[in-house]
């Protein structure tokens, strides 16, 4: 069994706010193997974006990594020097973001921005012509037509989908082994979304590139990912191969999430909503974070935070009743 490409162990992140600290990431365990596409799913406040930002240490100043290790190819990322970290970013590990138009610099052309990144990551010094050629090649890879003209354009002249392709091109310029994709399709139209998902999948497969795909959209995760991790209230609560997670979720939250999902199907049903809301930092319950909303809660759930239980075949679930929940998702309690 090969070492995982990315290994996050017991990651804890704290938020500094008005002289008080609160834990927003409370012990995340996550692995991504070489060439694997892993989905990181959760609702807002679950900590999924922060987990991804922690990898490249892009957290805003009010958030600090307080514990844990993040290993990439054996390298402990939290111990890197500033220079080494800079080399890693956009190099072996690249990141794309949600709402691409906000993530491109509005006062420079797309070509200037792409070429800056290409030059930054090339091993030898390239001539202007070589850099330009590489930029055009990247644009072709992400299927942007008329690349020369597009390179001279400014971000505001692009649609959301095109801008995301530009970001992907920039991310690919350093030939990354791991791509962190933070909700790359959330701000896009559904037809454009489908194209971008397809593009990501093809590129990942062609290059043998691993992807950590952060999303709240389970449908997109199904289509793109080999494996899925579900996050709730700053922790991973379940991880499994995609089809296994969908067919046989072992954590009550995952189950409830799947049941709450409206489907484009003929049957109209009362959507099983989850009562209450995800706890905020201030009112985190004792023990299992989900038990206050859980249909299967027992008094024991309050005693301690459950460990991730091995269900077999790499399927883990953070619930003391995992493996013993009724699988008939029509009737919850």
């Amino acid at each position, binding site marked *: 069994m090969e070492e995982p490409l990315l290994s996050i162990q017991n990651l804890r992140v704290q938020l500094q706010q008005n002289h008080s600290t609160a834990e927003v990431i409370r012990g995340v365990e996550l692995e991504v193997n070489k060439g694997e596409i892993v989905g990181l799913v959760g609702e807002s406040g679950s900590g999924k974006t922060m987990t991804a930002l922690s990898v490249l240490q892009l957290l805003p100043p009010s958030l600090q990594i307080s514990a844990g290790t993040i290993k990439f190819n054996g390298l402990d990322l939290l111990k890197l020097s500033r220079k080494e970290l800079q080399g890693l970013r956009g190099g072996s590990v690249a990141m794309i973001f949600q709402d691409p138009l906000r993530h491109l610099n509005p006062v420079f052309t797309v070509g200037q921005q792409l070429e800056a990144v290409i030059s930054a990551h090339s091993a030898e010094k390239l001539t202007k012509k070589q850099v330009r050629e590489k930029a055009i090649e990247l644009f072709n890879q992400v299927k942007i037509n008329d690349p020369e003209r597009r390179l001279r354009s400014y971000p505001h002249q692009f649609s959301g989908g095109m801008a995301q392709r530009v970001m992907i091109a920039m991310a690919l310029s350093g030939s990354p082994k791991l791509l962190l994709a933070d909700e790359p399709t959330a701000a896009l139209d*559904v*037809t454009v979304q489908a194209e971008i998902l397809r593009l990501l999948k093809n590129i990942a497969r062609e290059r043998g590139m691993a992807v950590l795909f952060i999303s*709240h959209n389970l*449908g997109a995760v199904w*289509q793109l990912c080999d494996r899925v991790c579900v996050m709730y209230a700053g922790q991973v609560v379940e991880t499994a191969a995609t089809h296994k997670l969908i067919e046989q979720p072992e954590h009550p939250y995952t189950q409830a999430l799947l049941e*709450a999902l*409206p489907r*484009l199907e*003929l049957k109209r049903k009362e*959507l099983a909503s989850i009562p209450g809301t995800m706890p905020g930092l201030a009112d985190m319950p004792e023990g299992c974070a989900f038990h206050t909303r859980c249909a299967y809660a027992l008094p024991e759930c309050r005693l301690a935070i459950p460990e991730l239980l091995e269900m077999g075949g790499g399927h883990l679930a953070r619930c003391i009743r995992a493996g013993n929940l009724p699988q008939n998702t029509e009737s919850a309690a």
Partner: protein
Amino acid sequence: MTITAESVKPGIPEAGKPLIEARDLVKRFRAGGSFGHGHDVIAVKNVSLAVYPGEAFGLVGESGSGKTTLGRLLLRLEEPTSGQILYDDKDITHLRGSELRQLRSAIQIVFQDPYQALNPWMTIRQAISEPLKLFRGLKGAELDRELANLLEMVGLPVSSQKRLPREFSGGQRQRICLARALALKPSLLVLDEPTSALDVSVQAQIINLLRELQRELNLTYVFISHDLAVVGQVCDRVGIMRYGELLEITTRDQFITNPANAYSRTLRDAVPEVGKLLPLMQAQEEA
């Protein structure tokens, strides 16, 4: 939830006749430039549709399709460049002043972003009682009763009224917006992406609530959304828009199984669904 006889609006137009109708609506915006240098954006191009009482009509499309503009036209938040809008057989296309204000008690809206739709300095009580006072002239004990009724209808505790919007989550704020819209006892509710800013589990709560309210208050919905799965769960008929044109109107079942229009099919196929493989798509023409 308490439904009193009063909470069902008297004088609902008879079924069979459209509640609201758009005839050949056009909305043109002038973009850019003073001194007549600007160019036109035609947001809504010759759209005709009819929504019948008691139904939930979905308006779907991608960005730039014109669905939001059309929704605003139906509400008369905008005046059309040409064409007609009829509400209960009355021509409301060019209403002004007090007549337009009266229309407001018949047609209401719930917006997409619950974080922006509520005045952060007004308590919930102030936000909801404003329309009650201004349009229905309620005060005192009567006002209190109706306020409590509305909050209960949307599933919020009566004690919420003293609190400010920032103390509530997105889903709860959306409920407040609903209560505010319902305060005027409208017959028609235009919902502009009401669940797009919400998480999946909260979205489910709001969808269930919307369906329940429609049943019990006999409301008519115009439900604008880009999320086809949500529209599929809430609506009876669906209008598909693209680049300002209404391409087709079809029943919800028809849309899910076999839409006639090629774009409708593309749209439906593109929705990422658990259990559905990635569609085989070539790079489409960019908008």
